[in-house]
C-alpha cells in the first residue's frame, strides 16, 4: 500500500519537475527507478512473481562528475546502467536527462536523445561484431545519427580513433586481430564517436590485465577532462572505483544502501555492508593483517528478498527492527546518504516500529480476507482432505509393517523361553 502511495506522489511531482527543468549543473536525476523482471505467470499469462533487479533508486549526477557504482554480482548494478539508457522496456520511475524524462519519451523522440548517452560494455570480446571492420564499427552509429556525411566519414572516424589511441591503419582491420585492451579502446571509440554527454561504463576494465587496466583507466580520465564527459562507472573492483569516481553508490539487492562523495564513503563508512565490502578487499602488502568482517553465506535471491532490511540476514549489527521494516534512505551526514536502522533517532525508531506493527496487522487482515474467499476456502478443504487420506494410507502401511515384524519376534521369544524351561 505504502509503495503505491509513494509512486502516485512521485508521479505528480515528476510532471512539475519536468516543466520547471533541472538546475544547470545537474545532468541526470533519477527518482525511484525500478526494473522488475517477470519470472512466473498465472494461467492467463499475467505475471505474478517478479525479480526485483532494481528496486527504487534515486540519485542526481552533476555535469563532468563521475558516479561509481559498486556491489556484488547480482545486486542489479548492470541492470540499473542499462535501464538508464532505456535498453530495457518497462522501466518504472523517472530518469530526467537534460530536463527530459527518458522513461516516458516516445521512441522517435528518444532517438534524438540517444547519441547523448552511450555505453561501454563489459566484455570487449562479445560486444564487437566480428564481421565489421574497426572503422565501420566506430563510424556506423555516427552515420546513422547523421553526425557526418559520406565525404567526411573517413576523416571523422580517424579523428575519433586518434583520440582513443588507435593507429590509423587499424581502420581496415577486424576485431579478432586485436588484444583485449585494444578491443576495449575500440569500444570506447565507438561510444565517443557520437559525442555523448553521459557514458555508462559497465565494468570496462574487469576483463583486462592489470597493466592494460591502467592504460584504459588513464585514457578514460584523460577523455573526461578533454571532452567534459560525465561517467557512470559500474564496477565490482573498489580500488578502481575509488580511483576514478567523485561520488560512490553502494548497491545491495537492487537498492543503494550508501551514497556520498568518494572521500566520505571511503573514509567514513556508515553502512555495515559497505564496511564488510571494503574490509574484504585484499591489500597488496604482506604486512597488513586485515580485520575482516566476514559476511555469512551468499547474497539472497532477488525473487524473494528478505523482509525488512534486505541485508539483515548477513548483518553483524542486526536488531529486532531490521527484520520487521525496511530502513529509510536518508541523509545521515552532509551529502552522505545511508539506509540503515543504526542511524535512526529514537523518534524514528518508534515511528518505524509503529508503522511495522500497522503493516503486520494489515497483512494479517489481508491474509484472513484472502483465506475467506470461497475459492480459497474450497481449495483449503480439498488440500486438508487429501492430506488426511495420505496420512491414513501411511498409517495403514506402518501398521502392516509392525504386524509383520511382531510375528517374527514372537516365535523367537517362545523358543528362548522353551530353552530356558528345558
Amino acid at each position, binding site marked *: 500500500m505504502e509503495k503505491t502511495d509513494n509512486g502516485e506522489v512521485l508521479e505528480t511531482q515528476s510532471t512539475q519537475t519536468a516543466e520547471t527543468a533541472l538546475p544547470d549543473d545537474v545532468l541526470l536525476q533519477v527518482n525511484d527507478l525500478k526494473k522488475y523482471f517477470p519470472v512466473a505467470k498465472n494461467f492467463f499469462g499475467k505475471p505474478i512473481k517478479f525479480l526485483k533487479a532494481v528496486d527504487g533508486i534515486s540519485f542526481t549526477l552533476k555535469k563532468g562528475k563521475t558516479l561509481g557504482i559498486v556491489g556484488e554480482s547480482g545486486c542489479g548494478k548492470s541492470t540499473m546502467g542499462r535501464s538508464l539508457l532505456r535498453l530495457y522496456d518497462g522501466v518504472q520511475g523517472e530518469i530526467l536527462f537534460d530536463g527530459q524524462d527518458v522513461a516516458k519519451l516516445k521512441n522517435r523522440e528518444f532517438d534524438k536523445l540517444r547519441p547523448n548517452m552511450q555505453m561501454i560494455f563489459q566484455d570487449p570480446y562479445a560486444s564487437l561484431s566480428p564481421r565489421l571492420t574497426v572503422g565501420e564499427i566506430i563510424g556506423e552509429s555516427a552515420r546513422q545519427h547523421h553526425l557526418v556525411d559520406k565525404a567526411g566519414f573517413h576523416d571523422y572516424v580517424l579523428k575519433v580513433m586518434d583520440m582513443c589511441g588507435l593507429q590509423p591503419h587499424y581502420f581496415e582491420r577486424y576485431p579478432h586481430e586485436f588484444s583485449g585492451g585494444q578491443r576495449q579502446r575500440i569500444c570506447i571509440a565507438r561510444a565517443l564517436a557520437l559525442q555523448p554527454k553521459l557514458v555508462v561504463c559497465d565494468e570496462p576494465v574487469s576483463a583486462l590485465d592489470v597493466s592494460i587496466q591502467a592504460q584504459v583507466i588513464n585514457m578514460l580520465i584523460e577523455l573526461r577532462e578533454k571532452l567534459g564527459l560525465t561517467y557512470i562507472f559500474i564496477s565490482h573492483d573498489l580500488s578502481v572505483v575509488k580511483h576514478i569516481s567523485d561520488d560512490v553508490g553502494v548497491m545491495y539487492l537492487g537498492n543503494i544502501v550508501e551514497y556520498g562523495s568518494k572521500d566520505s564513503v571511503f573514509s567514513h563508512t556508515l553502512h555495515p555492508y559497505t564496511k564488510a565490502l571494503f574490509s574484504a578487499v*585484499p591489500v597488496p602488502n604482506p604486512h597488513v593483517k586485515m580485520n575482516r568482517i566476514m559476511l555469512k553465506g551468499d547474497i539472497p535471491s532477488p525473487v524473494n528478498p528478505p523482509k525488512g532490511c534486505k541485508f539483515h540476514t548477513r548483518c553483524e549489527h542486526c536488531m529486532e527492527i531490521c527484520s520487521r521494516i525496511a530502513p529509510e534512505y536518508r541523509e545521515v551526514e552532509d551529502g552522505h546518504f545511508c539506509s540503515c536502522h543504526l542511524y535512526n533517532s529514537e523518534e524514528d525508531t518508534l515511528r518505524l516500529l509503529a508503522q511495522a506493527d500497522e503493516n503486520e496487522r494489515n497483512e494479517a487482515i489481508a491474509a484472513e480476507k484472502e483465506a475467506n474467499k470461497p475459492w480459497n476456502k474450497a481449495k483449503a478443504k480439498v488440500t486438508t482432505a487429501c492430506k488426511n487420506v495420505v496420512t491414513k494410507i501411511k498409517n495403514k502401511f506402518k501398521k502392516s509393517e509392525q504386524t509383520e515384524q511382531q510375528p517374527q519376534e514372537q516365535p523367537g521369544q517362545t523358543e528362548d523361553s522353551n530353552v530356558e524351561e528345558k
Partner: protein
Amino acid sequence: MAANKDNKHYISRSESRAIARENSKAIRYYEQRKKRKAKPDEYTTQMQDDNNIVEFDDLHTYFFSDAGTVKAVNGVSFSIPAGSTVGVVGESGCGKSVTSLSLMQLVQAPSGQIVSGSIRFKASLFKRDEKGKKIPVYEMEDDEYGKRFKLDEKGKKIIKKNELGGNVYEMEDRVVDIAKMPTEAMRSIRGREIAMIFQEPMTSLNPVFTIGNQLDEVGYLHIEGISKKQVKAHSIEMLKMVGIADPEGVYKKFPHELSGGMRQRVMIAIALLCNPKLIIADEPTTALDVTIQAQILDLLREIKHKINGSIMLITHDLGVVAEMADYVVVMYAGKVIEMGTAEDIFDHPMHPYTIGLQKSKPTVDGEVDKLYCIPGFVPNPIDMPDYCYFRDRCEMCKEKCAGAYPGYVQVSPTHKVACYLYEDTKEDGNGKD
C-alpha cells in the same frame, strides 16, 4: 602480395606445410614417449633440497600450433617448500596456468607437450611386485604360535582397512620426475597426491551429474575397496569440511542450483577428497565477488593447516598473493623474472616489470593522480626475441640489455631476479663479503 609482405603474421603455403610436417613429427615423438611402458626406476630422481615438495627445473612446455611453435613455458625453475603457499603471478598468457597444467600432465595434447626440463615431485606411491601389482597389507592376529594372518570364513586373508574403509597397500616414498613419467603411471598421482581447483567452477563441474555423483567418482577411483556407503559418508564429510551448511541437501543437487561461491566450495571438496599433499589453485577466486573471495581464501588457508599440505596459488591479483603466499614467483612471457618471499617481492621489488605491475594497480588506501602504465604489449609468443623479453617495454633499459637473456642475480638468500640492472650490485655485495 604487397599486403602479405607487410603483414608480419603472413605464412606462405609452403611455409605452413613445413611447419605442419615438423609439428606432426615432434608430436608423434612426445606422444609415444608418454604412452611407453616404463619401470619406476626410469623416472625416479633425487630432490635437490629435501625440504621441497616440488621442484621445477628448466621446464619447457611448447604448443605446436599451425602458425609456429608457441613457447608457453620457456625455462621455468622454482620450487615449492613443503607446508608453504607459493603464489605465481603474471598477466594472462605468461604461462602460469601452463606451468601448473604441466605439473598435472594436463596440458592440452597433442599440440601441447612438455618438451624438456624436469618436475621433481616427492610422491608416496604404491609398492609394486614383479608383475606390477599393488602389495596389500593383511590383518594379523596374535596366536599361541606367534603372529599369523587373520582369515575369514572362506579361509582367505583379510586386507587391512584404513579409517575410510579403503584397502591398505604397502607404500613407498619416491621422488619422481613428472616430465618423464608415462601417462599411465601419472594416474596414481593426479588427484590423489596433487589436486587442482580450477578457475571457473561452472565449466569444470559436469552439469548433468549431481554434486554427490561427481564427489563419489573421485572416491571410487582413488580409494580401492571402499563401499558405496563409506564413499557417500566421506563425500558428505568433505562437503561439511568446506563449510557447506546443508551437506546432505547439496549432495543431491545439480551444479546449476548452486551459487558461484558454493560451486567453488564443491570444487575444493573434490580436490580434498583424497588428502592431497599439494593443491594447485588456478585463479580460484577470479570469477567470484570480493566478499565471497574473502570467504574462499579463508577456507583455503584453514584447509592448508588441516591437511598439512602445500598450495600453489596461481593468480593475477597482487592483493590475493600478498595475503596468502609465503613465496612469490613473478612470471612474464613464459619465464620467471623474479622470485622471493612475499616480503621481498612487495617491499623491495627489483625487476622493472614487478615494479610497474605494483604501481599500475590502484589501491583502496593510497591516492594517486595518475596510474603508472607499462608501455607497449607482451611480445608475440611465436617469435620471441633473443634479448630480454621485457626490453622493449622497459624504462630502465641499459646497453647490456641488447645482449643475451639475463641470468638470475641472487640479491638476497631468498630473492632472485633476472635483470641486468642488479648484476653490479651483486658483485659489490660479494666483494664486501
